[in-house]
């Protein structure tokens, strides 16, 4: 629909544009109902939270915001049954949700608190524990995706300057070329909008990113994440997030209730297909083996790690505290089994004139550290601050100086986190003995060295 960039000057003055199409475009930009200061494309967890956060920012109260979501937003009623899609919310994200008033909705419904995170290696005896054994720290919170989305949507509705459109799939973006151009957006139903700043929150396959022609580095892990809601044999104080590194990929159990946990089992696509086709009973049996079964260990690795333990003891470092194991899994919720492809992706540019990428549109990581959406929420908090700073300093909302600040600040945080997760993934995705040895030594030292662990946790918290 849009062919020639439309300037703000054209919107403000009656500059004569040639051709019927441009006359039409000018009319769109001049039509106050079609022009917005900010348009957010994509109403997933990140986009909706961003819309709500910007809508609640006092400094931006005179800005007109529009959230476009491609699918129809279904009126969610929280069922008794737990959803199989959950996220682990770190303390930074928790603060953001609290600040915008969405946490109370989640708290009124349900969530689980993780007080310890235990990570161990199936091929050696090494383990690492985050959080104190007295269960006093909070490591993270487990919340269902649907509940989180319902909570932020509820709060977003309270923002007077925010319009929300669902069933509004964007067909095409016309990005600015010159400084004063506006962004043109055409929906599949033919409707057109313009805005000063477009925020792309349209997920992994972001078409905003494609329109930006950003350099995107990506690869598939050749892994699928098999998810399910699992039921244990007994009720217990379920406050530990377990993660075991298996030869095919990590398997994680995130607490939901005293007897339920949410499973994310990363494995090869063939293996995933097979796991999905099993009966519940067979699946549970394989799951129990994966969690607590013994794998053939190399004697070299065992020897070296025990020598390492002695070495650490000599230097008065704590070794192998209380290590807990999850109880046996009894059953899985019927219909809760599903599989999702896993991949890595990072956009070298988060911004361009008039545009910024947020959340999975900009970066995608392996779910092994439960950081994916937290990076996106970190983007939201940062962008909210930076856009507020720009307007509070009377700059245009799309001022590149400020947007550059967003890009550099987030890349400074996201890239090391992604590299750490990627390194962890690569380190664990092998049975080759010297590497198994290295990684078990690595796990033990991180376990023993409290300051390093704190550093890892802090990085994961922002």
């Amino acid at each position: 629909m849009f062919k020639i960039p439309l300037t703000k000057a054209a919107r403000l003055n009656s500059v004569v544009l040639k051709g019927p199409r441009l006359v039409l475009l000018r009319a769109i930009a001049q039509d106050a109902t079609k022009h917005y200061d900010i348009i957010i494309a994509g109403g997933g967890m990140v986009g909706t939270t961003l819309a709500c956060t910007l809508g609640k920012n006092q400094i931006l109260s005179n800005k007109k915001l529009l959230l476009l979501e491609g699918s129809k937003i279904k009126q969610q009623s929280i069922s008794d049954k737990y959803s199989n899609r959950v996220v682990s919310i770190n303390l930074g994200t928790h603060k953001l949700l609290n600040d915008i008033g969405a946490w109370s909705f989640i708290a009124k419904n349900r969530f689980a608190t993780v007080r310890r995170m235990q990570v161990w290696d199936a091929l050696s005896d090494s383990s690492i524990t985050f959080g104190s054994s007295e269960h006093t720290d909070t490591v993270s919170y487990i919340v269902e995706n649907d509940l989180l989305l319902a909570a932020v949507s509820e709060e977003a509705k309270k923002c007077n300057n925010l319009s929300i459109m669902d069933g509004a799939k964007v067909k095409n973006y016309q990005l600015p070329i010159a400084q004063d151009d506006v962004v043109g957006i055409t929906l599949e139903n033919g409707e057109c909008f313009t805005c000063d700043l477009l925020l792309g929150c349209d997920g992994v396959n972001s078409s905003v990113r494609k329109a930006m022609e950003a350099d995107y580095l990506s690869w598939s892990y050749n892994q699928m994440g098999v998810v399910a809601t699992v039921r244990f044999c007994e009720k217990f104080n379920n406050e530990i997030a377990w993660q075991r590194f298996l030869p095919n990929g990590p398997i994680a159990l995130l607490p939901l209730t005293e007897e339920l946990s949410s499973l994310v089992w990363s494995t090869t696509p063939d293996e995933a297909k097979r796991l999905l086709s099993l009966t519940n009973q067979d699946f549970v049996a394989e799951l129990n083996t994966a969690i607590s079964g013994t794998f053939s260990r190399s004697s070299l690795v065992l020897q070296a790690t025990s020598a390492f333990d002695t070495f650490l003891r000599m230097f008065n470092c704590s070794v192998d505290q209380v290590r807990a194991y999850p109880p046996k899994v009894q059953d899985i919720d019927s219909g809760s089994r599903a599989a999702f492809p896993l991949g890595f992706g990072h956009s070298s540019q988060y911004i361009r004139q008039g545009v910024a990428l947020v959340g999975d549109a900009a970066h995608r990581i392996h779910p092994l550290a439960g950081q994916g959406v937290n990076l996106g929420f970190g983007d939201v908090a940062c962008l909210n601050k930076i856009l507020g700073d720009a307007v509070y300093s009377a700059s245009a909302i799309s001022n590149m100086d400020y947007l550059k600040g967003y890009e550099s600040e987030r890349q400074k945080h996201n890239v090391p986190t992604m590299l750490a997760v990627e390194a962890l993934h690569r380190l664990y995705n092998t049975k080759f003995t010297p590497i198994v040895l290295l990684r078990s030594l690595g796990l033990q030292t991180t376990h023993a060295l409290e300051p390093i662990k704190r550093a890892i946790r802090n990085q994961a918290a922002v």
Partner: protein
Amino acid sequence: MKKSKKWMTIDVSLNIRQLIDTNTNEFVTVFSLFSTVGTIDSEEVENFQKLAAEWWNPCGPLKPLHSMNKLRIPLVRDGLINEGCIAIVHVRTSTPLKGMSVLDVGCGGGILSEPLARLGAVVTGLDATSNALDVARKHAKDNNLAINYMCSSVEEFSQNNIGKFDAVVASEVVEHVTEKASFIAACSKCLKPSGSIFITTLNDTFLAHFLGVWMAENMLSLVPRGTHQSEKFVKPHQLQRILEDNGLRTKLMHGMIYNFVTNNWSWSSNRSINYAMHAVKNADL
């Protein structure tokens, strides 16, 4: 560094100033709108007129002035907030300067006046260059901003505007002014009791002369040649002294550092090139 020309004002008639170039003893007539002797040198008025067309290009020769807004807007805004001039309800909103009357001395094309107005201030912009003011008026109109632009020196303006302003901003002008004392006195005169003056300028140091002038004018063509005449630069303590003589107490003094590569300004404890000051007028003046 080229030797700057010295001008001597000999006669003032309506709208036309006649000047003698002291080097050649030639008469030069400069058409300008000021009718009485001000402290702005006519050679500089000419320089700025050449610039007028470039005012609103953020990547043009004045880009350091555009990017400096990132520091000087917060300087004015937070300075007034800290002085308790601003009602709490306006703090952390889109219009923190709501209702504040601000005088922008040496406003040029309005690079600083417009953002101040957008933050809710009632802005009066003064400049001696009518060409720049034409640019400023048009740009403000295009952006739906009501700013009162006037072609006048502050000395002249102050005579009929005693005690009218919550704040006076003189950003990057003091270094163009010959008679600093009467300039500051006039600024002070326009302020309400307890009003604030904000100044940014160049230091009178070797580094400022070298970097601020030579680099900027010769090497990087950021500001046109002849914009600055370094003998008019002023040291912070000298400026502070003049402010004190006019009943203005210094609240804050910061160095400012410009990154030529990224076109970015940042605050610094180093005041040897650019610096900013905030001073407050005595309550009983």
